[in-house]
């Protein structure tokens, strides 16, 4: 494609998105199971007589509906990545990972922008600061294109490819990732007002309104200070104010790290000369397994609703380099199947034989994306075409390659390499909670 063709194709895509058409249901795929959109297809537990009485009415857990996202369960929605076609992920297609139902200003008046405040405090600062929503909007802000990804994205690969059956957690498949344009006030602007003491050791983002008062996440100051312009307080996503499901009115934005670091419904930032231990860096969102030594807390550390015994492993930080093609993975060995997954358990997606363009996405936020390779049926690795834009470390890129698809069953694998030369591995060590699996994904497909 030359530049004009690319521009025309992008324009057509934008128009499709704005018309809110069902995108990316690429005609080449004859996925046979679209009618499987019922809870019956999903349950990990068969319906049983003891539960056959009238079920409870549905309660509003999230604000978004499920039409363009994948229902993993309770408060968790993945992206239908096989439908992805845009570079920026529309908010309606963006994954949601909450620990509790989405709090709204109706139930929690402190989330109304007129009432919202964030308290910035701690012994690592020269001065405390309290900011309202309007105060924040008057400060200098930045916009950044960055992926956000759930630590558990790709957990499916532990079950389907690595035979690690003891891994627990939701079955995200590969869609708990998206790219958004974030507008935020960087921490550098906050520190310009509060001052920062040289012995500040850790920063805690905390939500005083989310769930049972146990949702926040710390970061070491050395990490914060390595890129204080790239981390901050986000108030817009793709040009619009944040939606409740994405943390309205203000959330933390920690580019490149797993989404758990970007605390939603933010109300407190604490900077201290000690470390913090909370739910999301002790018994969740950590690498728990024999390959990962547990960190040891120091005297004087701050524990919020956890104890030293709760520390199961080191917290997950950077998301590793990854890739996928826009084909739904075959779900065969996973403990659960998302309710609105397009394939039945064990079913292969099908593709018409002949010349096909296979498309995908690749990203590696720690160092930025350098190249993507693919192979068919275990053959030689070949380089895929990376489609611009590839705007530095935090963005993903789309890629594609042509394939003369012969009839029969095939396996397509993809692997991305970042600018540090790190390539997706064939396997990753076991970790109990199924975090950050970036093993080379294997897409099984039936060509007819």
């Amino acid at each position, binding site marked *: 494609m030359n530049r004009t063709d690319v521009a025309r194709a992008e324009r057509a895509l934008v128009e499709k998105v704005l018309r809110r058409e*069902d995108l990316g*249901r690429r005609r080449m795929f004859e996925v046979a199971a*679209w*009618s499987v*959109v*019922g*809870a019956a297809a*999903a*349950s*990990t*537990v068969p*319906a*049983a007589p*003891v*539960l056959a*009485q*009238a*079920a*409870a*009415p*549905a*309660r*509003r*857990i*999230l604000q978004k*509906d*499920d*039409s*363009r996202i994948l*229902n993993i*369960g*309770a*408060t968790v929605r993945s992206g239908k990545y096989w439908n992805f076609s845009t570079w920026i992920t529309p908010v309606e297609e963006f994954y949601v990972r909450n620990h*509790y*139902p989405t709090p709204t200003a109706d139930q929690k008046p402190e989330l109304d922008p007129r009432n919202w405040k964030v308290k910035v405090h701690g012994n690592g600062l020269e001065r405390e600061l309290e900011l309202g929503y309007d105060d924040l909007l008057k400060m200098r802000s930045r916009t950044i294109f960055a992926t956000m990804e759930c630590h558990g994205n790709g957990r499916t690969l532990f079950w389907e490819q690595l035979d690690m059956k003891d891994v*627990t*957690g*939701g079955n995200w498949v590969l869609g708990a990732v998206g790219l958004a344009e974030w507008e935020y006030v960087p921490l550098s602007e906050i520190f310009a007002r509060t001052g920062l003491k040289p012995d500040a050791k850790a920063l805690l983002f905390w939500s005083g309104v989310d769930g*049972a*008062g*146990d949702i926040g996440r710390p970061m070491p100051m050395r990490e914060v200070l390595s890129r204080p312009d790239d981390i901050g307080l986000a108030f817009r996503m793709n040009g619009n104010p944040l939606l409740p499901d994405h943390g309205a009115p203000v959330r933390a934005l920690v580019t490149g790290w797993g989404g758990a670091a970007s605390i939603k419904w933010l109300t407190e930032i604490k900077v201290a000369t000690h470390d913090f231990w909370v*739910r999301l860096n002790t*018994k*969740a969102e950590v690498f*728990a397994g024999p390959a990962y030594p547990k960190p040891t807390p120091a005297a004087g550390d701050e524990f919020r*609703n956890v104890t030293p*015994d*709760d520390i199961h492993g080191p917290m997950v930080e950077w998301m590793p380099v990854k890739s996928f093609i826009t084909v739904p993975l075959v779900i065969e060995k996973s*403990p*659960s199947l998302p*309710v*609105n997954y397009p394939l039945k358990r064990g079913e292969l997606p099908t593709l018409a034989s002949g010349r096909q363009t296979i498309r995908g996405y690749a990203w590696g936020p720690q160092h930025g994306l350098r190249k993507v390779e693919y192979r068919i049926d275990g053959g030689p690795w070949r380089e895929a075409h990376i489609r611009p834009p590839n705007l530095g470390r935090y963005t993903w890129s789309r890629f594609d390659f042509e394939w003369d698809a012969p009839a029969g069953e095939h396996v397509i694998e993809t692997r991305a390499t970042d600018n540090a030369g790190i390539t997706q591995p064939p396997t990753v060590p076991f970790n*109990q*909670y199924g975090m950050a699996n970036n093993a080379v994904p294997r897409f099984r497909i039936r060509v007819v």
Partner: protein
Amino acid sequence: MKRVLVPAGAVLAGAMTMIAARDVPTALASGSQLERGRAVYAEACAVCHGEDGRGGAGFANPIWGEGAQIRKFRHAAGLLEYNLMLMPFDDPTRVSDDDKLAVTAYILARHGALAQGASLSESNAAAIAIR
């Protein structure tokens, strides 16, 4: 094909907006409430949380006893509300409110938070501490 999915999505969206208006039923007598709760737990919860509440195929951390997740709720009302809204994980509408009350009582009893002979109701939930 698309037309199959859109109405289904709309139905789901419609169902999601039906916020529960009805009250949680009054408690059953404690013995039968716990018996019911035990049956519901085995049927709907054990697959993810383990027969003994110490962890299973879906969730690794213990939900009652030493290191239990439910301590964070501090009182039974928080746990009951959570279960009514969010559990079972794959489909919270799969278990009735009566059964959710019973299974919450069972979980509290296993944790030692519900006194022997006591039962759980919507009205006493806020007064039952989880330590």
